[in-house]
């Protein structure tokens, strides 16, 4: 659906994105990176606000730049907070619907439906200038989804929303992601993680990683998986047992001697061996979990090295 072929974009001497090649298909993809990594530039290239300096960007097989047929099928929820403050929520959504190609006969119904969907129907007459941050965010999301786009691009979609709103938005995005292409750019990694396992990580303009988080994690050899193991008995005794396993490269006793951190480069092998050894020797294991098998750890390892 969205394809970048060796796309680069720079501003004078500052590089925005540098030689990025990737394909984004149906489902939810997380777009991650530090501030200044090139996420906004990538989004601007895909939403047709910028042209790549070299390389190619195609959406639905066409170049998105100033291409209204692409715009009709694309929804964009930007991060910047700026509206026509004098308009009411209703008027604004009506305007955006019509700009997105919704025929004027249906525009009012579309706007109303989207107001209800984001929970802003009761406040529809309120001027945008008088709306709180959370309300403005809901309107921003509404204008992006209301014309039923095939591709949805959201930059920090949850900002300003309270926990209730975040949950509602997550559900909405999961619903969309089931049938469409959704790209979510966010710094709140645990939220991205709850929505998808597929990520694109940019670092200083270059594509650092793409694909399934789990697969990426397994490929980071420099940081073996860290598994926390807690036991009712002695952690030291358990440590002795575990260090004997072929898949374990290090064991560390933490805190008050009941907690063990085990490092393993081959997690599948380790978990199987752990299970067997616990069942065979009746070890009083209480809990175990991996503390760095999540998106935050992957991000940290890749970006900080």
């Amino acid at each position, binding site marked *: 659906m969205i394809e970048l072929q060796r796309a680069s974009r720079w501003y004078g001497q500052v590089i925005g994105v540098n030689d990025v090649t990737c394909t984004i298909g149906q489902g939810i993809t997380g777009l991650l990176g530090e501030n200044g990594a090139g996420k906004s530039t990538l989004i601007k290239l895909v939403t047709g606000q910028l042209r790549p300096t070299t390389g190619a960007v195609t959406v639905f097989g066409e170049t998105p730049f100033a291409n209204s047929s692409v715009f009709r099928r694309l929804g964009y929820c930007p991060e910047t907070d700026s509206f026509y403050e004098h308009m009411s929520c209703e008027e604004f959504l009506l305007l955006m619907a019509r700009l997105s190609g919704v025929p004027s006969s249906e525009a009012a119904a579309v706007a109303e439906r989207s107001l209800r969907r984001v929970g802003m129907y009761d406040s529809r007459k309120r001027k945008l200038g008088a709306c709180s941050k959370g309300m403005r965010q809901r309107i921003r999301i509404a204008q992006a989804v209301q014309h039923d786009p095939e591709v949805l691009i959201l930059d920090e979609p949850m*900002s300003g929303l309270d926990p209730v709103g975040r949950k509602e938005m997550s559900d909405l995005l999961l619903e969309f992601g089931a049938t469409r292409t959704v790209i979510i750019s966010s710094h709140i990694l645990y939220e991205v993680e709850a929505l998808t396992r597929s990520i694109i990580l940019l670092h200083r303009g270059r594509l650092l990683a793409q694909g399934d988080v789990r697969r990426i994690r397994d490929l980071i050899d420099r940081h073996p998986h860290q598994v926390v193991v807690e036991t009712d008995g002695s952690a030291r005794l358990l440590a002795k047992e575990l260090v004997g396993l072929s898949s374990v490269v290090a064991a560390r006793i933490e805190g008050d001697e009941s907690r063990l951190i085990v490092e393993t480069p081959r997690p599948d092998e380790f978990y199987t061996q752990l*299970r067997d050894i616990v069942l065979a020797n009746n070890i009083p*294991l209480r*809990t175990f979990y991996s503390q760095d098998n999540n998106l935050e750890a992957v991000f940290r390892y890749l970006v900080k090295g």
Partner: protein
Amino acid sequence: MVANIRNLTVAYGRNVAVSGATCDIPEGCVGLLGPNGAGKTTLIKALLGFLKPNEGEGTILGYDIRSASLELRLHVGLMPESDCHIPGISAVEYVALAGELSGLPRANAMQRAHEVLEYCGLGEARYRFVETYSTGMKQKAKIAQALVHGPQLLFLDEPTNGLDPESREEMLELIRDISHNKGVNCIVSSHLLPDIERTCDWILVMSQGKIRSQRSVADMKGASDSLWDVELKEPVESFPSALEAKGAKALSYFSNLYRVEVPHGERAAMLILAVAREVGAEVRGLRPASRSLEEAFLEAIS
């Protein structure tokens, strides 16, 4: 206790923003949660003396919020949510001015400014103007100006706003350090529940102007000893039924995550691992189940 509030009511005309709030805020790090419009901001404004409450009273660190509001600000620091700084001067000059305005003599203020900026992670950058800073650095400068006068209580309003993952990590670490190791009490208002979970020990939930609950995080999450969260590498269809055959019960499952109830007296780990081996599932995580803070929060406000 860091603060005591009795029957506080604050209204803007006919709109009652905070109604009959009564609570005792303990030392350490307290999280302030609530939906938008719950009255959290109004409560903070009243506590810091920016608003006169219509009814009720409160003391913070022993200072009455109605009568000693200026003096209160000598001992309280505020890290506001929005972007703010004093323009046209370097960061160290800015933080020193913040210290001076809080009653420190100039020399002490300068010394403190350097110390605090160092602690907040702004090295050489402190000699530059704040206008040239990135978002992460601006947040650090903001927290530095709140800490410069050595407050005993720090209010942090959405401290991780706009920060990338690395800076968020640093900020949360700093808040945890300062509240747990350095004795500075914190009140953190945030919509990001995991942030609150990570830094706070006590939670205040507000909704529709009232305080709905004030409990410790552990209390809210309520770990149980017969419920366990099991994470498999990939979801396995036969896992729940195999568990039932052994006397356990799979209470809910989402993708590869299962909540399992194990009857008392049984070794949960042994049982679950044995079942997993039977169905050929790889267990990647086994922990006592606790409610996520999100669940607890939603329950508190409903």
